[in-house]
């Protein structure tokens, strides 16, 4: 630590930081615009001016920009010095000279960094007596609204969008006083991280268009800490609501996971909670084969369930990777572990089991996104992160700068000096290798790619392991180019300080995961420190579901077949998305009775005898276990309304109703977690993912509503002028009102970022132990999988080469960031971005079958007929075809599989 003096007081500060960062960490209110903790400094806005003195004798000093001054022992400066303060106010005056002052009609109003900084500098009197500059706005797609007149030219948007996120359709144009930030022509912002512009922009140029459709001010929204339910990364979010619906999602900082950024699927997918096909009342289907449904009172539905249970010869439960840990566990408890299915078909189940095994065996435990961002050599084996775990792709995009910077350590340019570092690194990129059948959006960064069938990808992985450590078995019959690539990858990983192997279940191949594990262990055996295995899983709770060790769906089919089981309880799972329709139909028709719980109507709920309306993330408390085995709690921003209940609470009621279990054990989240901890020791730490419901600060709960919340007494006045009793919360230490503890809660309970003078999300600075560091009091969540040290040998079954096959194509799943996720696809804004169904084909294969781009291709995959237009992918190797997974209304499950072309 360095000792610095600010306004005559000495402080300890981090010498790797700049003065602005240090001052903010120390709690000073120093205004800034162009600097961002994740983007670093460029010195463009000149807002953070302070006076710096050479030494104690120096009384004149000079005005410097704090974001450009490295912290060093003996540094002396003044923030309050009048000339510096006057200059900071002048910068605001300049920036405001053309700003439209339209705060009352601006979506940013009340949480605007420009407003905050204006107040902070004290500028209040207008001297600019000229017409203001005006710009034309652009249509930028369904996510982002554009209002250029508000721009203060801080350049953050293009630095995030282009430099950080790799987007190529948002730039600064023109010059001098007419610099314009936008696309070169109107159109949808292509990058899947565009939503972060909402929080990156210090004022209202880029705002959330989905919020605009049902706008509410920040201070009028009731919010809770949540966890994104649209992939397994588990980005921390803040979900905000008003008038009973979710209005927007904001980033909730987690040092090890999402940091400052979310992907667009996570930010804009939330409106599925309010979609027309949400289930809000219990439904009965008197005749499953006919499309007749009746809405039932909960008591009536429960009565029907009691009848079903009493008539059943055996009840089995189908769990779900998108249901919470508590709900899955409650279901397993209801039906018994022998009759509990993970809800996955064998092909996915086996891959997921292999992944969990590899995570448990990883020397240091599974890696985090922060590890990925810091890695200096990366091998991606059989994953397409931009589409399967988007936020991970953003982390990997940053990693490629690490090796060039390390290699040129002599340049001594501090990491925060963004302009200098980027110009210094130029186009040089550290080693990132991608093995995936088709092209990916990280290819522009890749030092090498291997586009091949899943088994060939596994073989490459094993070859890398062998090249690192000859103790790993050799791969026979590997072609020369793959073999060269394997040695290049091995060399890069061995030379790295922080090598990382990324792998997952995307191609449903246990062999790929085993190869990734073999590589990590080979690195560890040969002495590479810090080797890291990063697991990618598809759904929010895939790992938590897998840790409950249910059986694959096919086992359940056998139990139905044998008559051991005749009744199914299906939890938040549309099994038509998991198995081909004919196979699903067989399961459904073999089950005499089906009870389904879900938040959305699906093909599966349509065929259930009884459907219970379960809460989405917005009406539920629960826990998801993310891709790194971290249990994370999400809390409901909305009190459950109507008949909606958390799935685990419904299951508890079923248990009580049918006499399977005592009700009082299941009516509170903490009791479910206690039972879970007792039954599953590995999952026991999940209880500590967040403080329990009894937790208080000074005897007070933590408010979900901001202190300035308005309309409390009038919000329901169209129904009744009597103010109702506020909803109670038996499951968390949060309250639904603005009353309660006014200080900062523990990180797991943060519902909004606010601090005096800091109304925008940049108040986050005040919630961190240091700027861009961990949350005060530690980041939330509980790691469940500690890792197993260096000794474990992974399995080494190397697949045989994929034989040539002229007759059929190997259909592999490919993924779409917008479309492959079931829930977000139901959000209208996301739905606009979903591509039309397609089958990706190599040009040579297309030619072979006489097809061109856009022509209709008919395939027979097992018993499933698939028809879609051809999309030519020149990167796809011949013999393969790519089929997007999980597309709404066009789901082709159960891949990879052989497909024959039907003419």
């Amino acid at each position, binding site marked *: 630590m360095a000792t610095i003096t600010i306004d005559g007081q000495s402080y300890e500060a981090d010498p790797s930081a700049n003065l602005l960062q240090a001052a903010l960490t120390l709690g000073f209110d120093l205004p800034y615009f162009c600097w961002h903790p994740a983007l670093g400094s*460029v*010195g*463009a*806005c*000149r*807002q953070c*001016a302070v006076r710096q003195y050479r030494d104690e004798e120096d009384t004149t000093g*000079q*005005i410097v920009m704090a974001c*450009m001054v490295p912290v060093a022992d003996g540094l002396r400066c003044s923030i309050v010095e009048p000339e510096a303060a*006057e*200059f900071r106010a*002048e*910068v605001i005056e*300049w*920036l405001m*000279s*053309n700003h439209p002052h339209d705060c009352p009609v601006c979506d940013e109003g009340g949480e605007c960094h420009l407003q905050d900084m204006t107040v902070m500098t004290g500028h209040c009197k207008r*001297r*600019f*007596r*000229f017409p203001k500059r005006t710009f034309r706005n652009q249509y930028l797609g369904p996510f982002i609204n554009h209002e250029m007149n508000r721009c*203060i*030219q801080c*350049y953050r948007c293009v630095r995030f969008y282009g430099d950080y996120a790799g987007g190529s359709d948002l730039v*600064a144009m*023109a*010059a*001098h*006083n*007419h*610099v314009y930030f936008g696309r070169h022509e109107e159109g949808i912002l292509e990058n899947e991280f565009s939503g972060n512009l909402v929080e990156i922009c210090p004022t209202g140029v880029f705002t959330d268009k989905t919020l605009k459709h049902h706008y509410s001010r920040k201070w009028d929204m009731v919010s809770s800490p949540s966890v994104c339910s649209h992939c397994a990364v588990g980005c921390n979010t803040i979900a905000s609501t008003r008038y009973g619906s979710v209005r927007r999602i904001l980033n909730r900082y987690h040092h090890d996971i999402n940091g400052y950024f979310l992907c667009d699927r996570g930010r804009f997918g939330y409106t599925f909670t309010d979609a027309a096909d949400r289930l809000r009342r219990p439904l009965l289907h008197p005749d499953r084969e006919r499309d007749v449904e009746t809405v039932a009172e909960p008591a009536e539905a429960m009565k029907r369930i009691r009848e079903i249970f009493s008539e059943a010869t055996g009840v089995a439960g189908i769990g779900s990777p998108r249901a919470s840990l508590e709900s899955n566990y409650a279901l397993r408890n209801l039906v018994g572990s022998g009759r509990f299915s993970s809800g996955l078909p064998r092909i996915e189940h086996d891959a997921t089991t292999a992944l969990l095994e590899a995570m448990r065996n990883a020397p240091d435990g599974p890696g985090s996104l922060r590890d990925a961002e810091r890695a200096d050599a990366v091998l991606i084996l059989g994953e397409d992160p931009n589409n399967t775990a988007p936020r991970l792709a953003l982390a990997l995009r940053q990693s490629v700068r690490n090796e060039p910077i390390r290699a040129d350590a002599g*340049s001594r*340019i501090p990491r925060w*000096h963004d*302009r*200098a570092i980027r*110009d*210094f690194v*130029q186009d040089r990129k550290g080693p990132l290798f991608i093995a995936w059948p088709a092209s990916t959006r990280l290819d522009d960064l890749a030092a090498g790619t291997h586009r091949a069938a899943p088994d060939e990808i596994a073989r490459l992985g094993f070859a890398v392991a062998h090249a690192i450590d000859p103790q790993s078995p050799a791969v026979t019959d590997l072609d020369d180019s793959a073999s060269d690539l394997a040695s290049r990858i091995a060399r890069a990983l061995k030379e790295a300080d922080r090598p990382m192997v990324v792998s997952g279940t995307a191609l449903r191949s246990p062999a790929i995961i085993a190869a990734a594990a073999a590589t990590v262990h080979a690195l560890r055996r040969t002495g590479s420190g810090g080797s890291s295995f990063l697991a990618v899983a598809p759904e929010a709770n895939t790992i938590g579901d897998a840790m409950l060790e249910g059986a694959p769906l096919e086992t359940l089919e056998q139990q139905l077949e044998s008559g051991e089981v005749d009744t199914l309880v299906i939890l938040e799972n549309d099994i038509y998305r998991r198995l081909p329709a004919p196979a699903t139909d067989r399961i459904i028709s073999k089950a005499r009775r089906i009870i389904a719980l879900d938040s959305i109507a699906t093909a599966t709920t349509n065929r259930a005898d009884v459907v219970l309306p379960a809460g989405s993330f917005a009406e539920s408390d629960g826990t998801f276990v993310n891709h790194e085995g971290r249990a994370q709690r999400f809390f409901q921003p909305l009190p459950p309304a109507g008949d909606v209940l958390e799935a685990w609470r419904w299951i508890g009621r079923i248990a009580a109703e049918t006499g399977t279990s005592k009700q009082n054990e299941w009516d509170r989240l903490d009791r479910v977690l206690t039972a879970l901890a007792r039954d599953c020791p590995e999952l026991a730490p999940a209880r500590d993912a967040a403080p329990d419901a009894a937790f208080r600060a000074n005897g007070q709960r933590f408010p979900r509503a901001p202190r300035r919340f308005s309309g409390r007494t009038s919000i329901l006045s169209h129904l009744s002028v009597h103010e109702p009793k506020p909803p109670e919360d038996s499951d968390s230490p949060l309250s639904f009102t603005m009353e309660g503890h006014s200080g900062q809660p523990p990180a797991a309970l943060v519902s909004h970022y606010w601090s005096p003078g800091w109304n925008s999300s940049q108040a986050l600075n005040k919630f961190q132990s240091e700027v861009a560091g961990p949350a005060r009091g530690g980041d939330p969540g509980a790691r469940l999988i500690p890792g197993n040290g260096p000794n474990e040998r992974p399995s080494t079954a190397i697949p045989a080469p994929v034989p040539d096959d002229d007759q059929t194509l190997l259909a592999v799943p490919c993924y779409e960031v917008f479309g492959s996720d079931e829930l977000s696809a139901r959000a209208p804004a996301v739905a606009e971005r979903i591509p039309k169904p397609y089958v990706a084909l190599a040009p040579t294969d297309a030619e072979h079958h006489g097809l061109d781009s856009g022509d209709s291709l008919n395939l027979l995959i097992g018993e499933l007929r698939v028809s879609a237009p051809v999309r030519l992918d020149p990167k796809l190797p011949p013999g393969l075809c790519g089929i997007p997974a999980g597309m709404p209304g066009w789901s082709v499950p159960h891949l990879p599989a052989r497909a024959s072309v039907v003419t």
Partner: protein
Amino acid sequence: MAISEQRVILKHVDEPGYDPGIECYVRHGGYETLRKAVGMQPEEICRGVEVSEVRGRGGAGFPAGMKWKFLDRKSGKPIYLICNADESEPGTFKDRQIMHKDPHQLIEGMMVSAFAIQAALAFIYIREEMPQAARILEAAIDEARARGFVGEDILGSGYSCEIVVHRGAAAYICGEETGLIESLEGKRAYPRIKPPYFPAALGLYQCPTIVNNVETLCHVKHVVAIGGEAFARTGSPGNTGTRIWCVSGHVQRPGYYEFECGALTLGEMIHDVCGGVHPGRSLKAVIPGGSSAKILRADERFTGKLKDGTEFDWGLNDIPLDFDSLMACGSMSGSGGIIVMDDRVDMVEALANINAFYSHESCGQCTPCREGSLWMKKITKRMAEGGARTEDTDLLLSIGDQIAGRTICAFGEACAWPTQSFVSKFRDEFLAKASEDSGKRKGLRLV
């Protein structure tokens, strides 16, 4: 003309029969210095340039030898030489003369310099508004290459270096050396922040790079020709060699004139060399070093101490024309562009004209000049046209005061100095204009 010029760089320029072709240049002893240079050790040439104390002729007056000394030779990266021919400072037109009329002198100067710093490649960044000069230079480079002065194995020395002529596109900011480098890299010409961007260490493509003005590079040739010590004896101490002064505006004989530094005073230049203002007119003010230099009033007294401690008390006419004296008088010799204004000139209009230039040329990267230069332009324009308020005079000054020294590059000073100096030195004129009734004025001459 009472005082005769001391032409070195412009020695042959405008001589009857002298043409820009290589035959003519070689006939006049051209490329002999390059021949001498490639026989020397590169370090020896650099030492000579250092000893010569030759200062940059582009505007800042930084000693060229010292700039070269900062060159990072250990990085192992290629070294680049860039000739800054983006002559855009209003009132300056000296480099144009060299490039149009004696292009080989520049090429020889560049090749001597390139050899001295062992450059791998050299560029001439020439402004778009000089297309003919660009063509002349390209033709001259071809001629020089054909004779082994440029390109592979120069004069059998084993040293090779190409020159690429690169045209700008009408952006003044490309005269700023880091803006120029960004532009040459194919980007928007946003100046870089120093540190860490001293081009001598991290310049073009993050390689060590020397950026010198056209006139400076020509001087290098003469330094090598006569030796650093001999060069240092010309001009005055610390202000060595000759300078080309560009005189424009209200004088009878505007033009370019080369003199040793300090060899004559501003008064001699205006009255004797240039014939003074037109008959019946009187001198009102002079901008001595391109339009960004602070203006000097005709009746101003300048007192103070020079670097060597001698006290001075000068009128405008007494100021010696060199780097340090003009700096001591609170202005600068800048790019050598002397703009003379007689008593007809309305100072508000003149400043409005200058401010229009700088607001148009601000790159837009950092706040003070992007917003401040435009605001100053708007205020001065309104003052000139009518409709200003009395307080606008002080407002102008306060904006200018906040810009200077607080921007990423020196453009902040360039756009603030005119306002600061005009308003403080002609305050009455500004106040009078600002407080007159707001009716629209007609017949403006400068805006």
